[in-house]
């Protein structure tokens, strides 16, 4: 079939057979909310659809549903995600395996309804698993995989499947719909609330006061925090296993954590995330034709941060240029650049790195922008220093 990324996401949800879905529309997620509603009305998704009054209630409703044993889904972005933040923060330590699409949108203000990754990047440190998709097909496939990852007994964490607002949400592509029976077999029996539940047969108080200055409270708090961190590290393994199983069953393969493109003999590389990667690969191919030894590293999984996998990729090159679609205000660079710097510390050798910021507020990152990133990174390889970030769409 042919569809855009938002419809592909809705099909991924339909195939995963959720019990409860709650949505509140916000651009550029709105059509995804509409597809979900339509699918429920048409009986394609046999779930309770909760039309609530805002995103804070959306996620709160899903907390209750999850505790009652339901498989759940929602989607949001931008200001909707901001409004959702209070229950969003509480979801991972409650260990609720909710799957949520963030159809990424830039941060307001300046007033803006277009794509950018500022929303998802801003909330990356809260304990949700974060995966970024490159194509509509990957959106569909990753949503199904996300349930298997979230509900894995070694993880039990919520998962965000992120796709670029405008470019993936509305871009129409060919998408293959997996067979329902095969997906059922892939996902297996669901058991959402084996560990924490609202169930009269298993009476418990969920999330009692934990912590304080005295008694066993602080140690208990540490235990739960360590448990969440451990689950995140387990996710590095499980995300790979689930992607491998997906490839075996459905024949489509994605780099689960980090993709290396033409890196074997590369002297330097650009680092990308999300849908910009296609243009990045084209630019790398063109530069290769004119003799440049350049490669590309794409990050799919941002949380947990794949430190060791990235370290291996980075150890193959002598300079990197990181293209971010969002901003770290406090560091005057892109957030992935900031995290790549931490990873570079693990290398034996010190190599130059440049921060590029592009694609804000719906701007396109085209081949010409990547050409500039490649040329500049080549200069850094030859010893030129760049202390400021380079804003790719500044002069468009």
């Amino acid at each position, binding site marked *: 079939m042919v569809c855009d990324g938002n419809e592909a996401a809705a099909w991924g949800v339909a195939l995963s057979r959720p019990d409860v879905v709650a949505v509140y529309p916000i651009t550029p997620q709105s059509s995804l909310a509409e597809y979900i509603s339509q699918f429920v009305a048409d009986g394609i998704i046999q779930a309770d659809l909760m039309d609530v009054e805002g995103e804070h209630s959306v996620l709160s409703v899903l907390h209750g549903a999850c505790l009652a044993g339901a498989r759940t889904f929602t989607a949001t972005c931008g200001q909707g995600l901001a409004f959702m933040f209070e229950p969003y923060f509480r979801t991972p330590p409650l260990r609720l395996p909710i799957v949520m699409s963030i159809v990424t949108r830039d941060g307001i203000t300046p007033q803006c309804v277009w794509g950018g990754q500022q929303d998802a990047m801003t909330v990356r440190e809260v304990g949700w698993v974060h995966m970024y998709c490159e194509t509509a097909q990957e959106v569909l496939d990753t949503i199904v995989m996300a349930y298997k990852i979230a509900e894995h007994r070694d993880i*039990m964490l919520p998962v965000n499947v992120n796709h670029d607002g405008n470019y993936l949400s509305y871009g129409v592509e060919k998408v293959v719909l997996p067979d329902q029976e095969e997906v059922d077999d892939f996902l297996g029996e669901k058991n959402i609330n084996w560990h924490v539940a609202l169930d009269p047969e298993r*009476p418990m108080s969920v999330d*009692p006061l934990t912590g304080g200055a005295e008694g066993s409270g602080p140690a208990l708090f540490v235990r739960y925090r360590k448990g969440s961190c451990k689950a995140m590290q387990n996710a590095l393994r499980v995300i790979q296993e689930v992607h491998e199983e997906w490839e075996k069953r459905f024949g489509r393969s994605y780099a689960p954590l980090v993709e290396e493109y033409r890196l074997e003999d590369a002297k330097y590389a650009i680092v990308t995330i999300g849908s910009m990667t296609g243009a990045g690969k084209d630019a790398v191919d063109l530069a290769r034709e004119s003799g440049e030894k350049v490669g590309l590293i794409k990050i799919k999984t941002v949380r947990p941060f794949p430190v060791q996998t990235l370290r291996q990729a980075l150890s193959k090159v002598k300079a990197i240029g990181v293209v971010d679609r969002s901003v770290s205000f406090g560091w005057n660079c892109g957030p992935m650049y900031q995290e790549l710097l931490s990873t570079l510390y693990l290398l034996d050798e010190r190599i130059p790195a440049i921060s590029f910021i592009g694609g804000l507020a719906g701007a396109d990152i085209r081949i010409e922008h990547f050409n500039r990133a490649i040329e500049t990174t080549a200069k850094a390889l030859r010893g030129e220093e760049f202390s400021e970030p380079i804003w790719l769409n500044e002069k468009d």
Partner: protein
Amino acid sequence: MRRQAREPFDESTIPNDLCPIATERIDLKTGDWRAERPVVDRDKCVKCATCWLYCPTQCIQEKPTWFEANLEICKGCGICADECPHHAIMMVEETEE
């Protein structure tokens, strides 16, 4: 521990570092950390129920000719004393005991 309607859930069936849950009830009394307590002057109290209406913890109990706070629950906020139209309630500092 107060008697529970059902047998407690067996926590040992799940890893102990997953989600904060409680399977036994321990009463925590909000009156345990009060700095001041409300004392009612029964001569002044006309039993108008203003204190009962305003108390945020709903701890005001009805007595034969007056109202007074249940000190297991009362947090000592002083709203009742502030609202009493007959100035019948004094906030008195709690001592060490």
